[in-house]
């Protein structure tokens, strides 16, 4: 199995319990954003998937200063592509369908025709918000939004900016 990073070597500490020795491992360090993302070979994903996804990610993560850091968007979208390529049948179908709906249906919510990427970032965000509030189609917005947000917050730059670095209580 291919991972985005190599697992850390186990630490030396050992605790014991009634079941037997339990190895204590080093906690995962912040995510390895610097490691190149590799997509599983052979997984079927339309070529346009990542471009469509990028249009959604740019709209989602834009702020009052404008579109987000393009490098981080590329990293997140590549990771999302890897995610979708590894998902089992239904999971991948749901992701592909959701991205398709947001690409082609969301523009209709702001009275535009054509793909979402053709709209400027602010109008894209407005279209996606209207889908999110629409009831049943809200699910279409939720699946890509959840995964994009999850991966966005796994990026060390995001964690630094939002003070959400990985840490434990003890």
């Amino acid at each position, binding site marked *: 199995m291919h991972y985005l990073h190599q697992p850390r070597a186990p630490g030396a500490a050992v605790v014991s319990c009634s079941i037997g020795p339990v190895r204590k*491992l080093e906690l995962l360090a912040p995510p390895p954003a610097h490691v190149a993302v590799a997509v599983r070979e052979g997984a079927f994903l339309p070529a346009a998937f990542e471009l469509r996804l990028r249009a959604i990610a740019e709209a989602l993560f834009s702020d009052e200063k404008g579109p987000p850091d393009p490098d981080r968007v590329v990293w997140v979208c590549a990771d999302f592509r890897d995610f979708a390529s590894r998902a089992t049948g239904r999971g991948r179908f749901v992701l592909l369908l959701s991205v398709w709906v947001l690409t082609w249906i969301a523009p209709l919510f702001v009275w535009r025709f054509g793909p979402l990427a053709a709209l400027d970032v602010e109008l894209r965000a407005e279209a996606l918000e209207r889908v999110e509030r629409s009831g049943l189609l809200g699910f279409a917005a939720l*699946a890509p939004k959840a995964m994009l947000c999850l991966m966005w917050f796994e990026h060390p730059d995001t964690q630094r900016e939002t003070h959400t670095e990985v840490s434990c209580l003890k």
Partner: protein
Amino acid sequence: MLEVISGRARGRDFSTDCDVAIVGSGAGGAVVATYLAEAGLDVVVLEEGPHVPTREYGAMRPSESIRHVWRDAAMTLALGLGDSPSINVTAGRGVGGSSALTGGVCFRAHDHVLDEWSKEGLSELSAAGMDPWYSIVEKDVHVETVPEEMRSKSTRLFVEGGAKLGIPFHSMRRNTVGCTGCGRCNFGCPHQAKMSVDIAYLPRAVRAGARIVSDCLVDRVRVDGSRATGVVGRLLDGPGGKPGSDVFVRARHVVLSAGAMYSPLVLGRSGIGRRSRALGRNLTLHPSFRVIGRFREPVRGWEGALQSAYSDHWENEGMLLNSVFIPNGILMATMPGFGKAHAKWRKTAAHVAIFGGMLHDDGGGRVWSNPFGREPFMTYRMSKRDRAKVPILLRRMAEIFFAAGATEVFLPFFGADPIEPDDLESYPFESVKGMKIECSSQHPLGSCHMGASPESSVVDPDGKTWDVPNVWVADGSILPTSLGVNPQLTIMAMAARVAFKMSERLAKP
């Protein structure tokens, strides 16, 4: 290191003989495998998912864990019927099953639930009858109380809010040893501190001679005449589950432990359990709702035990409040808006606290076979009684957060703006449509439920199918009703009981 035969790496057909073939390696299958192997039986465990060693899944980012060891990349949905919310149902898919991904919460079922079962003809399932089974598995998985100092600030704030309103909270019990409070149990414990079945049971089973095969999808039980002769399936070649080599395991007995979503499908495909019309019905989900409070001060709710406190204050109304935390990214995804509207929430990600509310549901779910793929299709029609509880539960949770000092509360309604304390009284909780409610479940139960009569249940009081005497079921699907509490421990206790019932029978000439 747990020894597992990798179906993916094998590259040729797999055929073997054994005493007992067990389908699934989660909280049910692992327990049955361990006790039967230790009783001297030749056991083969067939697991659909991959074997990802604990030290590897513990080192994954949450999104990596979801793509490698969660079922359907967490995209499984029970479609809400009528005014029911649609429910996102999550489960594990790998050696160890969902137990590797739980918060480690270990509740015994309430006495009144067990008494209800015993009155329905399942006399051995009374509180007294189940006590020894609970005791065995509690010792096996090292159930301990979470110390108060392990509570995250997110949990402490909610508990403080509850205290101001006179609502008591209690410390949870979990199957842990040496937890350091990293708040990421749902993605695999990075310290092997959680005693999931891949740590507490499966190594024992392997030491006793059991064989575990990963990436092995069982299609059906082969039945000749009135008896099962084994299981057939195929090895999977990768996450897409492309058909691989054939599998046939000849067995004297078959145990299905594929969970409440899959066990009824395998039985149905095998022509077992159809006569009662109970197969796939009676699915309960423990519908769960998250409520988020935003505070002026940083909360950093991931620092601490993921689940550490609960309140059963409204247990008589079928409501349980459970502490929980979810990754910041998922938390942010539940906040409304895109772009600028969403950016303001992202900036204060470290300032939010979260708590969960769960319903002890009446059922109303159903598992259907899916004509377009191997994954089941699920529907859920929430009972009127349960549906009426949703706004009450959410209002109560919002009240607690405001009592704790939250400046805003985010309710689980798609796209809804947060509410402030002054909004609470007039907020139209009751008029929010089911399809707008965000709801999740980690506890699918009851779709092959146990009963005293073959006319109304799928398995008998010992866990054996009524139709075929050497096919058994040992997972959450056999629970007669929902529990109202996290079911991991009860599934293990029921599985231990099934294993002992089986070993009694198999020992006979």
